[in-house]
C-alpha cells in the first residue's frame, strides 16, 4: 500500500494541472465576451415563434441572442446554478411562472424608464422584477348555430342549467384554466369559486381534454356548443393556411368576451424578467426594452394575435374585428398567488373527471 502513495500524488498533480489549463482556456473565452455582444435567454416560448422578434433585436442592437427552450425545470436550473447561471433573461407565457421565479429569488429588480413608459403599471411587477409583454384573454367560443348571441354574458353564466351537456374545455389543471379559476377565487372567495366550478363541471359535455383549438373543433363537430379558449388561438385558426380545416372550426364559432357589463374579461400575460445572476445584464435589459417597443409589440400583435401591452400599438386587423372589450384589471400577482388554491379546487371538485362523476 505504501508504494502507491507517490503514484496518487502524481495523478493528483496531473489532474490539477489539467483543471488549471482548462480553466485558463475557459476564462480567456469569457473575457472575450465581456462587451455584452450576446445575451442568454431561457424561454418557455417555442424558439420558432419568437425568432422574428429576436432577429429584429439582433439587427437593431448587434447583440446575439442564445435561446434554450423548455416548459419545466427552468426555475430549478437557474436556482441550482446560483451565481454561475448562464441565463440572463427569462421569457414566459403565463403569470404563474413569472411569479414563481420572483418568489424563488432568482430575479433582479430593473429600473428602466423605457419599460415603465411602455408597459402600463398593472402589467408589470411593482418591484420591477417582471414585465408583461403581451396580454391574452380567456374568452368563450360559442357555436354560431346553436347558441343565441347574448345568452351567455359572464363566466358565472356557464353554470346555468340550460347549458347542461354543452361546455367543452381543456384540463382544469392547464395554467390558463388555473389562472381563470384563481381569478374566480379572487372575485367570489374560495367557496363561491368552488360552487361555480362544480356548476361548470355539471354542464360539461365531455371529460376535459385536448388543447384550446381542439375545443373549437369539438363545437364544429357538434360535440358541444360552448368552449373556453385563449383569444389568439382563434386568430391562429382563422389564418391557418397550412391546415385550412382549422378555418372551418373557427368559422363555426363566435368569439365572445365575458363580463363586459361588470369587471371585464379575465386576462393573463406573457412576459419577461432579468435574472439576479445575469452576466449580460445590460444586454438583457436592452432585450426586454426592445420587446416592449413599438416594433416588437407590432410583431406580437400581427404574428400571434395577442394584445400588445404598449398603449397605442394597434391590435391585428382580425383582433380588431372582434370589437373593443373591457379587461378585468385584477392584480396579476393576486392571480398568481391564488394558483395553488385554484389547483386544489380542481382536485376537490374532481373537475377533470368530467361530467357525471
Amino acid at each position, binding site marked *: 500500500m505504501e508504494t502507491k502513495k507517490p503514484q496518487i500524488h502524481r495523478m493528483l498533480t496531473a489532474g490539477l494541472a489539467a*483543471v*488549471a489549463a*482548462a*480553466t*485558463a482556456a*475557459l*476564462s480567456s473565452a*469569457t473575457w472575450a465576451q465581456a462587451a455584452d455582444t450576446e445575451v*442568454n435567454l431561457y424561454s418557455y416560448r*417555442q*424558439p*420558432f*415563434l419568437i425568432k422574428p422578434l429576436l432577429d429584429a433585436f439582433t439587427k437593431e442592437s448587434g447583440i446575439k441572442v*442564445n*435561446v*434554450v*427552450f*423548455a*416548459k*419545466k*425545470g*427552468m426555475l*430549478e*436550473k437557474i436556482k*441550482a*446554478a*446560483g*451565481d*454561475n*447561471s*448562464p441565463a440572463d433573461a427569462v421569457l414566459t407565457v403565463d403569470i*404563474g411562472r413569472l411569479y*414563481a421565479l420572483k*418568489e424563488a429569488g432568482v430575479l433582479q429588480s430593473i429600473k428602466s424608464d423605457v419599460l415603465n413608459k411602455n408597459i402600463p403599471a398593472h402589467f408589470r411587477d411593482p418591484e420591477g422584477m417582471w414585465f408583461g409583454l403581451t396580454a391574452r384573454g380567456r374568452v368563450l367560443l360559442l357555436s354560431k348555430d346553436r347558441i343565441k348571441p347574448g345568452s351567455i354574458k359572464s363566466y358565472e353564466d356557464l353554470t346555468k342549467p340550460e347549458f347542461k351537456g354543452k361546455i367543452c374545455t381543456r*384540463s382544469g*389543471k392547464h*395554467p390558463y384554466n*388555473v389562472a381563470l379559476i384563481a381569478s374566480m377565487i379572487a372575485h367570489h372567495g374560495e367557496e363561491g369559486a368552488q360552487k361555480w366550478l362544480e356548476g361548470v363541471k355539471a354542464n360539461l359535455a365531455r*371529460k*376535459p*381534454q*385536448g*388543447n384550446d*383549438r381542439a375545443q373549437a*373543433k369539438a363545437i364544429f*363537430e*357538434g*360535440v358541444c356548443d360552448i368552449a373556453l379558449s385563449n383569444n389568439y388561438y382563434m386568430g391562429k385558426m382563422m389564418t391557418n393556411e*397550412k*391546415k385550412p380545416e382549422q378555418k372551418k372550426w373557427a368559422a363555426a364559432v363566435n368569439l365572445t368576451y365575458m363580463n363586459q357589463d361588470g369587471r371585464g374579461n379575465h386576462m393573463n400575460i406573457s412576459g419577461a424578467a432579468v435574472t439576479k445572476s445575469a452576466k449580460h445584464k445590460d444586454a438583457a435589459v436592452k432585450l426586454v426594452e426592445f420587446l416592449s417597443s413599438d416594433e416588437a409589440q407590432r410583431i406580437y400583435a400581427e404574428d400571434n394575435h395577442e394584445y400588445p401591452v404598449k398603449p397605442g400599438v394597434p391590435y391585428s386587423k382580425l383582433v380588431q374585428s372582434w370589437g373593443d372589450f373591457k379587461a378585468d384589471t385584477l392584480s396579476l400577482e393576486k392571480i398568481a398567488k391564488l*394558483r*395553488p388554491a*385554484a*389547483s*386544489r379546487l380542481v*382536485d*376537490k371538485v*374532481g373537475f*377533470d*373527471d368530467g361530467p357525471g362523476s
Partner: protein
Amino acid sequence: MRHAAAVSGRFSVRQLIARLTPDRWGAATLAVALFVATPLIAVASIALTPAPDIWRHLYDTVLFGYIERTLILIAGLGLGTFILGTGTAWLVTMCRFPGRGLFNWALVLPLAVPTYILAFVFTDQLEYAGNLQVALREIFGWRDRQDYWFPEIRSMGGAITVMTLVLYPYVYLLARAAFLEQSVCVLEVSRTLGKSAWQCFWQVALPLARPAIVVGMTLAMMEALNDFGTVDFFGVKTFTAGIYDVWLNMDNISGAAQLASVLMIFVVVLVVLERMARRGQRYHHTSTKVQALPSYQLRGWRAGLAIAFCALPILLGFVLPASVLTSYAVVFFEVTLNANYLTITLNSILLSASAAVAAVAIGLILAYGLRMGEGPLPRAAVRFASIGYAVPGAVLAIGVIVPMAALDNTIDHFSERVFGISTGLLLSGTVVAILYGYLTRFLALSFGTVEAGLGKVSRNMDGAARTLGASPLRAMSRIHFPLIRTSLLTAGLLVFVDCMKELPITIILRPFGYDTLATFVFQYASDELFEESALGALTIVAAGLIPVVILALTSLRTRPGHANPGGRA
C-alpha cells in the same frame, strides 16, 4: 456460515459490521452504484426540504384516483405486453408458418417509435375527424356522433393500447432469446412425456423463460410509470400527472419530490416482491445439446391466425405511424430542413451513442462487481440505482442538476479562491449533464441486460477458470466477454434507441443552442404543430431502425451452434 451467524442468537455488532462490510469488488460496485444513484438521492433529499403539506389535500381528493389509474395502466400494459411479446416470441421461435422469417425481425420495429409520436398518430387517425371515422361515416351514411358509437381514443384504453404497441418488443426480445436458449432436451423430454404443444408452452417453456419475460414486463411498466407526455395527451391523470401538478401548479417542488419518492419506493417493493416470488430458482442450462429447435408446422386457419397475431402489432405499431409521418414529412419537409437538420440529427446520434457506450460500461462494471463481490449493500445499491427508469424524466433532471451544479459551484469557489480564476459551470452547463441523466435513467436497461447475459454463464465456468489459475480479469476477458458479447451489444442498442427518443431530460439539461431531434419535434408538437416537424420525427424512427434491426438479427444468432456460421460455442 452466514446463516449460522444469524441464528447464533447473540447480537453482535462486530458480526453485523463484518457482514455489511463489502469486500474490494463490493466496495467498487457500491461506489459506482452510488455515483449513478446520486440524482435519485438528490430527489429524495429535495423531498425532505420543508414545504407546505400536500398529503392532507391529496388524500382528501385525488390521491386514490391517481393510484387507481396508475395501477390500471401498468396492469393493462403488463398484460398487453405479456400477451403480445410472449405470444409472438413463441410463434416465431417454435412454429413454422408463412412470413415467420419476416416477423422474426420486424416484430422489434415498433421499439423505434417514440410513444408520444404513436399517441399523436393514433389520435390523429382515430378521433372523430380522423380518416377512419370519416370513412365509416361515408360508407354507412352516418351524419354525426349521435348516429353511431366509436370508442374514445383519449382514454385509459387508448393509453394502454399505444404504450403496449411501443413497449411489447422488450418482452418479445427477451422472451424470444429465452425460448431460443432453452435446451432442446427439456422440451423433448416434455414432448416424450406426452405433453401437447400448449402444455409444453405453459408448463415448461414459460416457467423457464419467466425471469426474462418478467424483466421485459418490468421495463415496460417502469417506462409507463415515468411517462407524462402520453398520459397527459390521453387525459389520463396518473401519479406522474400528480407529481407535475404539485410541482408546477402548486409551486411545491418538495411535495413533488415526495410523491416521486413514494413512486420509487413502490417500484422497489414491486421488484423485491417479484424476486422473492422466484427465490431460489436459478437455472443454468447444463446441457450442451442445442441443435435446431423442433417446430410445429402450422397450416390453414392456424397459420392464418398466427400471421394475423404477428402482423397486427407491426402494422399498428410501426407501419401506420411511419406512413403517417412520411405523408406529413413530404408536405412539411422544409421546416425541418431549414432548422439545421443535419446538425440536430448528428447531435442526437452522437449523444445517444456516447450514452450507450457509457451505460454499457457502467452496466458491465456493476453486473461484474455483483458477481464477484459479496455483501448485501452493493446489491441493494445497484437495485436502487436501477429504479431511475421509473422516475419521471423532468424530476430526474432536477435530481441531476442540483448535485452537479453544487459540485460545479464548489470547484468554482475553490478555484476562485486559490487561483483567482472562475471556472463557471464545468459540468452542469454542458452535455455531460445530459449524459449523466441518461446513465441514471437507463441503468435498468444496460445493467439489466448485461446482468441477464452474465447470469446465463454458469458459475461452474468461473470456478473452472479460477482453479486453472486465471485471475478474475483474465476470466472476464477470456471466458465471460466472448459469451456475453451479444448481451453487451443488446444493452448498447437498447440504450441508444431509448436515448434517441428521450425528451424531458434532454430538454431541461441541454446547453444553449443545442438541439436534438426530440427537442426539435417537441418545439412544434408543444405548439400544436406536430406535422411540421414530421421529418424530424421520421428521422428519430429511422435512426432507431438501424440498431433495432441489428438487435433483431444478432439475437437470432444467439442460439449457440444454430444459425451461427461463425463457429461453435
